[in-house]
Structure formats: C-alpha cells, structure tokens
C-alpha cells in the first residue's frame, strides 16, 4: 500500500468513526430532551401527550394527601395562576414541603392529572428550583401580579 493510499484510508476511517459517533450522539440527544412546562401551560393543554416532560411550581399549602399504607401521594402544584393535580408513587425527597418549590418529571393523563415518575430533590432548603421560579415568574407576568402578593402567596 502506498503512503498516499494509507493516508486516505486513515482519513476515511476517522471520518466514518466521527460520523457514526455524531449520529449516535445526536440521535440520543434528540430523544432525551426533557422539556419544561408551567402548570398554566399544562392546564391549557400546551404540553405534549404521551411524552414525559417536567413541571415546576409551588406545592400548594394543605394540598398534600397520602393514601394510607401505600406510597401514593397526591398534591397540587401551582404557579399561582393555575393549579395542577399531581399523583406520585414513591418516596418524596427531604426538601419536599408544602409551600416550597418543586420540580417533577412525568406525563399528563387523559384525566388532566400529572403522573410524576420522579420528584426532584435539591441540596439546599433556600434553593428554589429555577424551573419552579420561572413558572411563577411567568404566571406573575401574565397576570400582572405584584411581587408583594407573590411573597404572601409563598
């Protein structure tokens, strides 16, 4: 094999590898993007059916209800404009509290209830999940609410 051919083979092999890798990566990337929606968007049916997505907002005070002797919990996530009922079967993270921010991943059923497969925990109690904060921010903008009413809602 001449050096020129060898070099060509090298380059071809390299490009092929990169091509395969890029296809693989972009494919996986495309199918694993998880989009974020606010409770208002979900209630307005803007969220996709059948594909998992994330919601964020505040856990409404007094909305947490456990089904006795099971791991089922029901609660309501609100962005202060709309209320979205959520069901979750599993263990809630330590930082899950009524009146605090939360982010959950799952999908919405035909009954309009959000079935969470994951309730996300973060490392700090003062920390408001950015997605939750932005949901409230969005609702505030839509309604023209003032910041003071928001903090009293918290």
């Amino acid at each position, binding site marked *: 094999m001449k050096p020129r051919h060898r070099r060509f083979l090298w380059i071809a092999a390299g490009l092929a590898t990169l091509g395969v*890798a890029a296809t693989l990566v972009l494919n996986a990337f495309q199918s694993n993007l998880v989009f*974020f929606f606010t409770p208002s968007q979900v209630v307005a049916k803007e969220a996709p059916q059948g594909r998992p997505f994330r919601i964020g907002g505040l856990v409404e005070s007094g909305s947490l209800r456990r089904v006795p002797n*099971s791991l089922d919990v029901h609660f309501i996530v609100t962005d202060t404009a709309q209320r979205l009922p959520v069901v979750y079967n599993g263990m809630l993270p330590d930082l899950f509290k009524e009146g605090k921010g939360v982010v959950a991943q799952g999908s919405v059923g035909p009954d309009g209830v959000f079935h969470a497969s994951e309730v996300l925990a973060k490392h700090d109690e003062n*920390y408001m999940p950015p997605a939750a904060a932005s949901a409230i921010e969005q609702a505030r903008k839509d309604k023209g609410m003032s910041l003071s009413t928001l903090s009293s809602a918290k």
Partner: protein
Amino acid sequence: MIPELGHFALILAVLVALVQGVLPLIGAQRRDATLMALAKPAIRTQFLLIAFAFGCLMYSFATSDFSVANVAEHSNTQLPMRYRIAATWGSHEGSLLLWALMLAGWGAAVSLRSRNLPDVLLSRVIAVMGLVSVGFLSFLLFTSNPFLRLMPAAAEGQDLNPLLQDPGMVIHPPMLYMGYVGFSIAFAFAIAALLGGRLDATWARWSRPWTTAAWSFLTIGIALGSWWSYYVLGWGGWWFWDPVENASFMPWLVGTALLHSLAVTEKRGTFKNWTVLLAIVAFSLSLMGTFLVRSGVLTSVHAFATDPARGVFILIFLAIVIGGSLTLYAIRAGAVGGGAAFAMISRESMLLANNVLLVVACASVVLGTLYPLFLDALNLGKLSVGPPYFEAVFFPLMAPLVFLMGIGPLASWRQVKLPDLATRLKWAFMVAAVTSVLLPFTFGHWSPLVALGLFLGLWVVAATITAIWQRLSRAPQQGLAAKLAANSAAWYGMLLAHMGIAVFVIGVTLVKGYGVEQNVPLDVGQGVTIGVDTFTFRGVAPITGPNYQGLAGVVEVSRNGKVVETLRPEKRAYNSGMTMTDAAIDYGFFGDRYVSLGEPITDKGDSGAWSLRVYVKPFVDWIWGGAFLMAMGGFIAMSDRRYRLAVKQSLAGLAGARAA
C-alpha cells in the same frame, strides 16, 4: 486582627504573583538570567503567603469568629471542631482560596522538584502558573473576599450545610481541586513549549509525572464525590449525570486522553501538537468546571444577571485563558511539529483510537451539559437532558475503548502484525468469553448486556495477566524477583490502572444488572424479603446529635431466620432547620445492603408504619474500589525512576552537545 492579616497576605500574594507571571517571562525571552532567577523565590513566597492567609481563615473558623461574614454564614459553635475546620473550604470563598493555595502549592512543588529543568523552560512554566494565579487571586479579592467583616458581629453563626457535615465531604473538595489545579502544570508546560517552539521527548518526560499526579487526584476526588452521593443523598445512586458531576468528569476524560497521548510523545516523539492541544483543553475544562459550579449558572442562568460580578469575572478570565492559549496554539503549533510515522495497526494507532473515543465522549458530555444552559441564557426555552442520553452515548463509546485496553499494552510501537496479536491474546479472549457467558447464570437471570459488561471487564483482566506473563517469561533475567524488578514502575502502574477500569466495569455491570431497589411501606414488625435476606422493620427511636435531633429506625436483616445484621437508618432535623436522611449501609465485598427512612405514612405518626427504601446493591463498592486502583496505578507510574534519572541524563547529553 487575624482576618486582616490574612487579607493583607492575599493582597501581597497577588502582587508577588504578578511579579512571578511577568518578569521571568520577559527574562526567558531575553535570556536574562537575573529576571529568570526570580521565578523560584516568587512562587515559593506566593505559596507561603496564601498558606498563611488560608491558616488565618482556618483560625477564624476554629475559634468561631462570627465577625467574619464567611464564618458567620457557614459555621456555628455547635458544629464539631473537625467540621468547623472543614467549613474553611465549605463555602464559595473558602473553596476558591483552597484553589489558589493548591495552584501555588503545585507551582512550589515544580520549583522544588525540577532542579534539572533548563532555566528558560522553568521560568516560562512558573510564569504561566503565576499569571493563572493573578487571575484567581484577583477574583478572590474583588468578588469573593473570604475575610470580609460583618458589622456588627453575629452572636451565633448559621450552620454548614448538613449534607457537607461528613468525612467524605471533608476530603472530597481538596482531592478534586488537587486534580483540577494539577492540570495547570501540564497547561503551563504546553504554553512554555509553544512559546519556546520546541517540544521533545524530554519535555514529555518532564510533564508526564505531573499530569499523572493530577489525574490520580482527580480520579480520587470524583470517586469520593460519587461515594458521598451514594451514602448521603439517601437514594442509593452513585452517578446522576448532574452538571456538577459532569463538571469534574469532563476534565477527567480529556486528562485521560492526555496521559495516553503524552506516552506516545515521550516514547515516539509523535502526537506533539495534539498533546499540547489536549493539555490546553484539559485545563480549560477544569476552569470551566470551576466556573459552572462556582458562578451559580447551574442554579439559575438568570441569577447570573442579578449578581453578575462573579460570573462575568470568571467568564472573562476563561475567555482570556482559553482564547489566549488557543491563539498561541494556532500561531505556534507548526513550530512544535507533528512527529514520526506509524502503521495502521500499532500501539500508536490504538492510543490514537483511545484519544478519539475519549475526546468524543467528552464532547458528548459537554453538549449535554451546556446545551440547556445556552438555550436558557438565550431565552429559547427550558429543558433538561436526561441521564438516558448520557448512558446511550457512553456505552457504545466506552465498550470499544475498554476492548482496546486489553490489546494496547501488548501491541508494539510502530507496527504490529494482527495474526501475531491474535495468537498472543487468544487464550485471554477465550477465558473471558466463556466465563462471561456462564457467570451470569450463577446470579440468576442471563442478559446479553450483563454478559457483555462482564466480558469487557474480564477481558481486560485476562489480557493484563497475559501481558505480565509474556513479559516475564521472555525476560532474560534468572529468578522471578529479578524478572519482576526488570520492569519499570510506570509499566506496573499502567497495568494496575487498567485493572482498576476492569474492576469498575464489573462493578457497574453487576449493580446495574442485579441490583434490587424496593420502596416499601412497612409497619412495625413487618418485613420485606430480597433474595435470601429478610429486612424487618422494628420501629424508630429518638436520638440527639451535637447539632441535630432525630429519629433512628431499626431494621433487622435475617437470613434463614437468624438475625445477621442490624441497620439503623436516621432522619435528622438540624438546628439550622434542614432535614436530612442518613442511610444505613452494610458494606460488603460482594455487595451492600442499603436502608433509608422515608416518612411515617399513617396517622399514627412516628410510631406507626413508615415508608422505607430497602436496596440490595451487589458489587457496588467495586465501582469506587476500581477508581482507587486507577489512582494507585497513577501514583505508582509517576514514581518511576526514569522520570528522575532521564532528566539528569538528557541534561548531561545537552551539556555534552553544547560542549561539542
């Protein structure tokens, strides 16, 4: 008084760093011995000053001086002494001070350990590290001063985040930073080579042990972080592809590529350009990791806009370092040159494949980590990239890499014949293949992915043993001891690190394949059976810690009716207001039993039924054990005699050449 002294020492340190960063560089350019001679005393003085400042901050923490804002925010009098000391680097400011301390420490170590380095190269290396230091120290002083006073002083401090009150978290950041910052040496060597326009085998031999050291520390740091999240966060995972974790993993991937590329540059004088580029990228990713974790962009891209000082500073610093070094690379890479030719199948080509795979893997992590941030920053929507993406990408990239790892050490440089390799490795291949097909049956169900994972791990083990066996049986020396002593520490280190990967792969495969996770509601006296073990819940009792109140559950593990272990998972309410779950883990060579408390689920409260996580994690500790072996391999490799001897010899050679 003490905090002011620390503050003053920091100001002096930045001035010294400025001297260290500028004058030796000019000296190296003009071949001015006086200016170059400044490099060593400057870096050592800078190190002592930062160490002094760090000591001052530690003193303020140890004595609970709440007139210092940083202490008041991250410590209190009820905190045990060891965590008060660890709190020194538990905060943003403190951890950056630790960063600067390590940078100066590495620099001082270079100045001590390289008496034989040519003055021009050494001055440039130290000067580049000085410039990086200037950046970090001014960042500390201008945006994150750890010595700021609080007026009036607080009566009592807030608490250190309870998640960080843990022995693992005490040593995790220093190890991680040793790794991050250690890549600054490879970076400084690379910049020095670009400035000098010369890069030879000796250069590679000088920068190799430092890179290996940094890589080993980074490996330990990442493993500790992973172990910490396993036993502290209370849900039994060991890696979440969280941006914070990815921030440390990206430099590791490129650092691993750099280690291997340096080997080729040292032994064969090839890959020169590429090695320099990897060194620049590895350090840039370390900086980017620091930026991601420290600027607050991960919590919220928009927090950035409300308090932009820190983020903008690091961003500008990043732009200067990365932009500057890449520009220099673009101009000077030609002077450094490529290197010798090699055949399609040779050790070089396999290391090239290793590099390509690692860099592609790193790029895919960069994409998954930064894409959501970019979209958010541009207000194009909010989304996240789930762990399935990383898993889907990583497996196909890592499988060929691990397979090559078995062949590489047996392949010779320049050229190797495939039939020859096949003959040498056929037994290793057959043993690994047969074992990995049969072994899953002993665990229960058979699955192709488990068999493949086991095959990759066992293949590396078998091929490594083959490599040792063939090397020893061909050695001319008499007696096993002499044969063993004939090989270099670097070779043993490399093989041990590869074994570490094998142990890691086997651990991951088995815990993914056969781990059982059950979240169950359990009444007092009720139990759940996983495999041969029955976990029985015996209720909870109150406990009191130094700075928390809590409940400890009792879970008995019994096998054939006999109690073999009692686990006490805790739920702690810290005085600072945070609640934390403390999992109880029964560690074992063949796997862990992992129990953590959820919540009371009946209206009877604490005395009634609870939800519990009951996990059985076979071979999970092999994951961190493997990482530990990798790091040990690194430390053994860097202790190789040739890194000390070769430097002297080459200098003798240089002197001889000059005389002639």
